[in-house]
């Protein structure tokens, strides 16, 4: 790298971009300028991060993970962080013609100029958008083709718990909570740069890998058996650990981020402020990857929540606050939280929402409390499985009686519409299990009509296709093929519509099974799937989470070509059940869960045996707490009424910064 190269780094490309913006749809999404955004001087920072949520701005900008890391990094004096999002095809074509590189929305700096390029993958369907961004940034798509002038590409988010399908394209992956991980990576990168970049790119990657908490795929070799299964995964260097651990942030109250929530000018999918009230979940739903990989439960205290709500409203001007978590009604102090916040904002235009799908009367009470002076339009419950048997298999402990009692309470309290979430294609499922959803929906309407004496009530049944995920008890399960999924859903639709007395009061929403197969391929794939992703992207795959851009046929034809000559194919990755002895592609990545426990839980599922939530019952030895030498953190704090606490303005970042392990 020459001196003039360095001098040019970090220079804005906005002047070139500006000429293209009048020609594209919704140009505001590319200009940044959000309230509470941070723009630092390039040369003041020693470590430059660009963070990407690999979907459109309207989906990515509200993402809490990226907002938190953006703020945490920018609090350091020696680092800066900017953001970039997926570029729609209209602007992508113009940028390629005009040779405008992938840019950040903060400083409109070329993504290729940064030291570290972090991508947050909530879903595998963002993989092709990563390739578009790399290509627009003039970063070689394959990690092995990159040199010291290119950013280190790091994947995070839930999908990073099996990054094998994208291991050709990323340099590293981080499992688990990002707050402390980005600080660690920043320290190591700064030290490496200050020391004159010893060992070049590989030298830094080795430093990262040696922490035992950052996965560098290039340092692991995968060998296969003749039948296509993995024989073993071995580190290629003695310094590199056999298994890589996940990161877990223990004390949420010390990390009240975002303190400065971003408020985009462009319209986004979540026009509200979010406060994360706890991380983790121990309900143990066997299909739920989030619930498994984010253990243990770590609650934010009632005062910590109240402070973040107050601070966030002041800083943003939003009029809605969402209290987020995997199952918000499960916070041990949620009743007091809801009552206090409802009291505090009563009479104002501020509304509170609590995304929760718990099927019990307590959940309805909470919803009533939060909608004291608002409209009671719809409430959502998630029985997930249509039959009692199915719900035992997936460990969703809800009886039909519970559901009917809950919806009766909801309709009686003035709610007009109830939405029910289900899944189709669960292990051991038959047509009959899914058809029971129709009966359940009819019983819900019947109960609602009886409770209200009115026919003006509705129930919407929403069904998603089940995709088995790594690090869950269903990681061994066969995914249901899309033809059977579609046939089953068609039968359900007919069954619901057939009953004239109820059919009109029941809405049904579902998608076809094809996208689920591609998601399944990417979720449980191994390194050989990388070639499929590359081929699909070359064939034009972009924005795969958007039905208008997704093409099943494009993916299947790409898979056929990319896996030509291999003993494995799409069916092998998706609809094949795995045995206990098979080495799974993510076995060397440690989510904290004991694989023996996962297997036992999978067997319990097949035996239709449910287990309780370990927050309130004895431990089932999933392995997380032992291994991390930690425990579930739930209240109560003893506080039931709120003073007006302040979000602590001292930064935990400063304390962390000096603690880089050598």
């Amino acid at each position, binding site marked *: 790298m020459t001196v003039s190269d360095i001098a040019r780094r970090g220079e804005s490309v906005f002047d070139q971009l500006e000429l293209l913006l009048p020609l594209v749809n*919704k140009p505001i999404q590319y200009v940044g300028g959000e*309230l509470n955004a941070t723009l630092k001087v390039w040369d003041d920072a020693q470590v430059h991060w660009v963070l990407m949520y690999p979907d459109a701005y309207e989906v990515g900008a509200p993402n809490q993970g990226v907002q938190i890391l953006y703020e945490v990094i920018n609090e350091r004096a020696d680092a800066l962080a900017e953001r970039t999002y997926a570029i729609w095809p209209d602007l992508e074509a113009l940028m390629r013609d005009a040779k405008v590189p992938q840019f950040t929305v903060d400083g409109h700096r070329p993504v290729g100029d940064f030291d570290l390029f972090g991508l947050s993958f909530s879903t595998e369907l963002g993989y092709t958008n990563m390739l578009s961004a790399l290509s627009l940034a003039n970063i070689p798509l394959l990690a092995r083709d990159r040199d010291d002038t290119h950013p280190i590409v790091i994947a995070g988010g839930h999908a990073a718990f099996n990054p094998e399908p994208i291991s050709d394209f990323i340099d590293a992956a981080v499992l688990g909570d990002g707050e402390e991980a980005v600080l660690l990576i920043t320290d190591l990168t700064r030290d490496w740069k200050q020391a004159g970049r010893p060992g070049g790119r590989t030298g830094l990657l080795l430093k990262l890998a040696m922490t035992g908490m950052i996965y560098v795929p290039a340092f692991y070799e995968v060998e296969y058996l003749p039948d296509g299964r993995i024989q073993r995964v071995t580190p290629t260097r003695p310094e590199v650990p056999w298994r890589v651990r996940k990161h877990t942030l223990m004390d949420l109250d010390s990390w009240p981020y975002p303190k400065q929530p971003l408020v985009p000018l462009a319209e986004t999918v979540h026009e509200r402020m979010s406060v994360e009230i706890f991380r983790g979940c121990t309900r143990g739903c066997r299909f739920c990857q989030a619930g498994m990989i984010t253990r243990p439960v770590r609650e934010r205290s009632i005062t910590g929540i109240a402070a973040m709500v107050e601070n966030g409203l002041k800083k943003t*001007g939003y009029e809605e606050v969402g209290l987020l978590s995997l199952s918000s009604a499960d916070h041990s102090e949620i009743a007091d939280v809801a009552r206090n916040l409802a009291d505090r904002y009563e009479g104002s235009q501020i509304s509170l929402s609590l995304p929760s799908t718990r099927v019990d009367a307590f959940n309805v009470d909470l919803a009533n409390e939060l909608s004291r002076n608002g409209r009671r339009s719809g409430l959502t419950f998630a029985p997930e499985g249509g039959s009692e048997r199915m719900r035992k298999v997936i460990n969703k402990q809800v009886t039909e009686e519970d559901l009917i009692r809950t919806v009766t309470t909801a309709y009686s309290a003035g709610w007009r519409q109830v939405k029910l979430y289900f899944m189709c294609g669960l292990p051991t499922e038959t047509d009959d299990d899914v058809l029971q959803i129709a009966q359940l929906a009819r019983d819900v309407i019947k109960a609602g009509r009886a409770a209200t004496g009115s026919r003006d009530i509705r129930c919407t049944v929403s069904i998603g296709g089940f995709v088995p995920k790594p690090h869950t008890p269903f990681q061994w399960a066969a995914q249901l093929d899309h033809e059977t999924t579609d046939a089953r859903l068609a039968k359900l639709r007919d069954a619901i519509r057939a009953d004239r007395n109820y059919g009109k009061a029941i809405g049904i929403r579902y998608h076809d099974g094809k996208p689920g197969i591609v998601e399944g391929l990417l979720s449980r794939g191994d390194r050989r799937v990388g070639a499929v992703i590359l081929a699909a992207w070359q064939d034009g795959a972009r924005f795969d989470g958007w039905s208008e851009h997704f093409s099943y046929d494009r993916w299947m034809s790409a898979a056929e070509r990319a896996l030509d000559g291999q003993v494995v194919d799409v069916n092998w990755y998706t609809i094949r059940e795995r045995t206990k002895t098979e080495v799974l592609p993510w076995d060397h990545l440690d989510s904290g869960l004991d694989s023996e426990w996962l297997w036992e839980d999978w067997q319990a599922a097949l035996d239709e045996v449910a287990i309780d939530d370990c927050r309130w019952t004895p431990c089932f030895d999933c392995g997380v707490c032992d291994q991390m030498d930690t425990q579930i953190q739930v209240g109560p704090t003893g506080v039931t009424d709120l003073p007006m606490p302040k979000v602590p303005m001292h930064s935990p970042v400063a304390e962390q910064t000096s603690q880089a392990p050598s």
Partner: protein
Amino acid sequence: MARLAPVRDVAPTVQRLRLQYAKRGRLRFSSHRDFQRALERALRRAEIPMAFSAGFSPHPKVSYANSAPTGVASEAEYVEIGVTERCDPAAVRAALDEALPPGLDIVEVVEANSPDFVQRLEASIWQIELPGVGVAEVEIAAQKLLAQEVVTVERLTKNGVRAFDARGPVVSLLVEPGPGCAILKAVVRHATPSVRPDDVLNALRQVAGLVPPAPPRVTRLAQGPLDPVGSTVGDPFSPDRAPLAAAKT
């Protein structure tokens, strides 16, 4: 079971304020809807005592006048708000400007002391920078356009392609040299459908084949009553200022 809208004490509007704001730099790419959301949030952050409509979903009382198109900068956009306590216009200007992102800037706030504000916004002055085009070329094109009585242009609207006259509302066209560009200043009367800078450029292309090599940069410089001579527009706030001035003397 029908639920009635909750009965609230709806505080009455005691004062109306008229705001002039600017849309500058990269925030010229914000749409009118983007601005609406930003303003309503800024009103909350600035703790302006907004008046609200009654009903299930109360809305702050804000009226928007004709807004500049997405991608066009402006020095002169107007909004009127209703408040439940009397406010000092200068304090509202400062607080609201602070609460809005840089690039959406509050230029001036006056108390509404006169009716028919929107009717006073008779015309706009648009500044159209044409990069890579010579002054002479634009002058010739402008004269050709002004020599016509009617120039029909087409625009894609929500209801399909619409054809209308873009010449009639054009009051005057003035051309000046700028850095690396010619600057066209157009005074255009507000009509229905409204003739926008794009339509004027379309008309110039039709009558004189004027096609700038790069997208023009457009700024609305002013809106207000049409000057009788026809070459400029007046201050739409002047009737609102008058009673104050009268009270002081």
